């Protein structure tokens, strides 16, 4: 909105919003004075803006309901997280004891390990749920920049990571990836999307010396396979049933190892 130059669309909008500097505003007023039809239209649009403001004004001063109080929201969130962690830690501990037989860590499964595994799954699922619904910024680094992401993560972890696997045989193409905090290290999330917009994520972070088999968890509608391989912990998460996710997880396992 320069002080000079011809009057443009942006001047008219800024005039309606009362955001013009006085000198420019005078120019716009002069211009509108010479164009009465346009002035009539702009004045009406200005009235619409004012009407909208005044009609929504009451909403702004309404008392805030208790359910929107931040302290209440945080307490509810903490309670949910604790309940989730408890049930997940319990189920993984049970698997570790051998009831389900899926958790085949070499050597003894220490309680510390179980908690780490539970928190890894929780992080992967949280990250999945957070970003699959994201419309504007689902990823930080787009698919065409994947080499950069892989290199960055490899540097951070001191281990060489393979490029994101191609999942087009399953109908999923790579959207991109992002870096996330992952406990005391950094984690990465790769996101894939199918033609219908359904998304799956691969979550990985450096850690774990042993190798494990796949462990399947289903949690709030999100299916997850986790495994440890080659110095990385992996999780693949999607709103798919176990049988459909397994071949995809197998492909990721083969390509990323």
């Amino acid at each position, binding site marked *: 909105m320069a002080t000079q130059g011809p009057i*443009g*669309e*942006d001047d*008219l*909008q*800024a005039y*309606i*919003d009362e955001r013009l500097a006085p000198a420019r505003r005078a120019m716009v007023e002069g211009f509108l004075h010479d164009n009465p039809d346009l002035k009539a*239209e702009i004045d*009406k*649009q200005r009235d*619409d*803006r004012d*009407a*909208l*403001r005044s*009609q*929504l004004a009451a*909403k*702004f*001063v*309404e008392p*805030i*309901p208790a*359910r*929107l*109080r*931040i*302290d209440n*929201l*945080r307490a509810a*969130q903490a309670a949910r997280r604790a309940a989730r962690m408890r049930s997940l830690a319990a189920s993984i501990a049970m698997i570790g004891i051998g009831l389900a037989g899926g958790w085949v860590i070499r050597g003894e499964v220490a309680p510390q390990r179980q908690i780490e595994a539970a928190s890894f799954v929780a992080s992967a699922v*949280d990250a999945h749920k*957070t970003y699959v*619904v*994201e*419309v*504007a*910024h689902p990823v930080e680094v787009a698919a065409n920049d994947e080499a950069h992401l892989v290199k960055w993560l490899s540097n951070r972890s001191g281990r060489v990571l393979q490029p994101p696997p191609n999942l087009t045989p399953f109908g999923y193409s790579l959207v991109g990836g992002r870096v996330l*905090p992952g406990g005391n290290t950094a984690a990465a999330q790769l996101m894939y999307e199918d033609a219908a917009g359904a998304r799956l994520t691969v979550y990985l972070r450096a850690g774990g010396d042993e190798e494990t088999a796949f462990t399947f968890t289903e949690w709030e509608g999100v299916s997850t396979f986790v495994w440890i391989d080659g110095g990385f912990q992996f999780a693949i998460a999607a709103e798919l049933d176990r049988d459909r996710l397994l071949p995809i997880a197998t492909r990721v396992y083969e390509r990323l190892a």
Partner: protein
Amino acid sequence: MSKRLEAEIPALRRYAFGLTREHAAADDLVQDCLERALSRWYLRRPDGDLRAWLFTIMRNLNISAGRQTQRRGPHLALDEHLTPRADATQDHAIDVRDLLATLGSLPEEHCSLLLLVGVEDLTYEQAAAALGIPVGTVMSRLSRARRRLRDLLEHRAPVSLRRIK
């Protein structure tokens, strides 16, 4: 953090009501938005604009909620359109509904822009950040949105999306 977030709630509720035009649905949206903001607080740029960030979250939630409704079918529509609203007896209530309903018939991006700039007083730069578009696009889109709203209110056929200056 609580204080900073709480200070933004009135504006978030007003924007949500402008988007949904239903009191309960608006507060659901605000709640989802605040929960998302709390769980992603660590992802926020510390020097970033809290307000624009919150509006962005809310707008994205509203868009994806709209998509889900489309997929499931608008099962609420009958009741909500046929039942008179509680505030229908208040002064100007009809006008409120007319203007807001007309606003709601605009494309989401126009509706959001009119609310964020015209009501919430976001700067053009903040609105551009919240909508993920360049400032130049904000200006041309705002101009189109205002013209369309006016056309609809006067029951004129909406102008075509592109108009040569």
